């Protein structure tokens, strides 16, 4: 197996997880700041290096061995983008040139962002609906670091964060959802309104700041104060998420019974376009793959949903250039390589 394709294999999101028809991935993130240092945005260059040094020492001594430590300020642009495409770091984190690092486990399910908005963000990421094991993994790292670093903590406000809306538990619980039917039935706005009432944030495929123009939505809690982590997790897992997943499944059933022809037409057209296109932009490919994924989930297309999941990872710009290093440069070259890649994968 080539090194390029094994880099796909090790990605946390390369395979399907539980409830894959609607839930793409689950994530739990904990924000922590080192006591005695200014928050990252206010820290000097030297203080950021100090946070890096301190946290690297603590991580290497306390967290299970085998975490790779990547200093991003020296990384090439493509490597940074690669990490964004794997949902390991935010775009903002990838693009800044200040001292910062990512520590990541071999299976990429556990990672630590150092010097993002907060000194440390512990994140656990898994395919499908796996909030409990993400939560356990994130807390495991938090526990391991407990004796090694003094965190900024306030008796009333809990863990102190650069943005005061994250105080308390400093936890963000989120799920990436595939909601194509809600979009087709134009009920997605109702969901977004409901999300506001439930104090949820709704973001796009690449998280904060990314647009929600495709069918993929990242939904996360916004309340972090006044409830335990377990209570916030239970609310999200047992109340919020089942409701959103059920909405989407109902919308799919509604389409199957009332608009079956329209639905079949759309998923087959998407498949045909992917099988015939000679130039394919990333956003167009994602829109079409979303429909093919829906067709696979409903049994309307003889396509393996796991293959679609993997393709969504592979056709992103940095991954594609890694898989097809011989391709020329420029927009047209990239679109042409992507079209060829998808045609082969789905034939």
């Amino acid at each position, binding site marked *: 197996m080539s090194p390029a394709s094994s880099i796909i294999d090790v990605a946390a999101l390369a395979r399907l997880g539980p409830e894959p028809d609607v839930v793409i991935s689950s994530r739990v993130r904990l924000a922590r700041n080192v006591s005695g240092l200014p928050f990252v945005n206010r820290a000097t260059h030297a203080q950021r290096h100090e946070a890096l040094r301190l946290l690297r020492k603590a991580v290497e001594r306390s967290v299970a061995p085998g975490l790779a430590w990547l200093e991003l300020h020296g990384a090439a642009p493509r490597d940074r983008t690669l990490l964004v495409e794997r949902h390991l770091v935010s775009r903002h984190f990838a693009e800044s040139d200040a001292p910062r690092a990512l520590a990541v486990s071999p299976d990429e399910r556990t990672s630590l962002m150092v010097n993002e908005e907060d000194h440390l963000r512990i994140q656990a990421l898994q395919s499908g609906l796996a909030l409990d094991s993400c939560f356990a993994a994130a807390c495991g790292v938090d526990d391991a670091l407990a004796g090694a670093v003094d965190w900024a903590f*306030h008796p009333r406000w809990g863990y102190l964060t650069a943005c005061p809306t994250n105080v308390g538990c400093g936890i963000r619980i989120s799920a990436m959802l595939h909601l194509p039917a809600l979009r087709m039935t134009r009920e997605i706005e109702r969901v977004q309104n409901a999300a506001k009432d439930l104090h949820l944030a709704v973001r796009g495929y690449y998280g904060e700041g990314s647009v929600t123009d495709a069918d993929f939505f990242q939904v996360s809690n916004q309340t972090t104060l006044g409830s335990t982590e377990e209570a916030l997790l239970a609310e999200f897992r047992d109340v919020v998420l089942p409701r959103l997943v059920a909405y989407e499944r109902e919308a799919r059933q509604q389409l199957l019974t009332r608009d079956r022809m329209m639905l079949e037409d759309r998923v087959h057209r998407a498949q045909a376009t992917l099988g015939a296109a000679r130039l394919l932009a990333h956003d167009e490919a994602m829109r079409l793959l979303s429909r093919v994924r829906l067709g696979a989930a409903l049994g309307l297309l003889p396509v393996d949903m796991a293959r679609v999941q993997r393709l969504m990872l592979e056709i992103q710009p940095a991954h594609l250039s890694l898989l097809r290093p011989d391709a020329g440069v420029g927009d047209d070259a990239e679109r042409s390589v992507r079209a060829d890649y998808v045609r082969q994968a789905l034939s």
Partner: protein
Amino acid sequence: MKCDHCERPAVVHEHLIRKGVIREVHLCAEHALEAGLAVPAAQPVAEVLLHIAKSTQGDAARPRALASCTGCGVSFAEFRKTGTLGCPACYDCFQPMLGQVIERAQAGGTAHVGRAPKAAAEVELRRVRREKLMRELDSAVTAEQYERAARLRDELSAIAPDAGDAPGREASGPSGPAR
């Protein structure tokens, strides 16, 4: 010596008289300002007491938020603009406005109840015990139960971590490995 309310060193050491009980307070610059005490502590005690007496009447009793953080220099106006704070001390300096901002964003949550670093839990436990003993001491003195008051004072002074600053009060004796 550490501040009574946080981990920073105390720069203000005062005796406050409340209900006939003299109370020692040790505060860092921020907490001293918040309590209405002047920094540095070089002022005559009478003036400080006058200041306290004034500040316990009416509006002034509420701690006033500082214009900018004594820890990092960020101003509340800057925070308003960027949405991010500069350092942990901002959380104390920008009270009570910041508290209102947080509570509004948190849909009713007013205090943390989740995970906590072990050390912080101990610090908080000591703070709660100290306050409880202080209240009992107040009532003992008011009721003229002097023996009880003396016992409570002993209990109060035995609470760490200030005990660590007083040599010889540690039960473990001279430093060295335990047997």
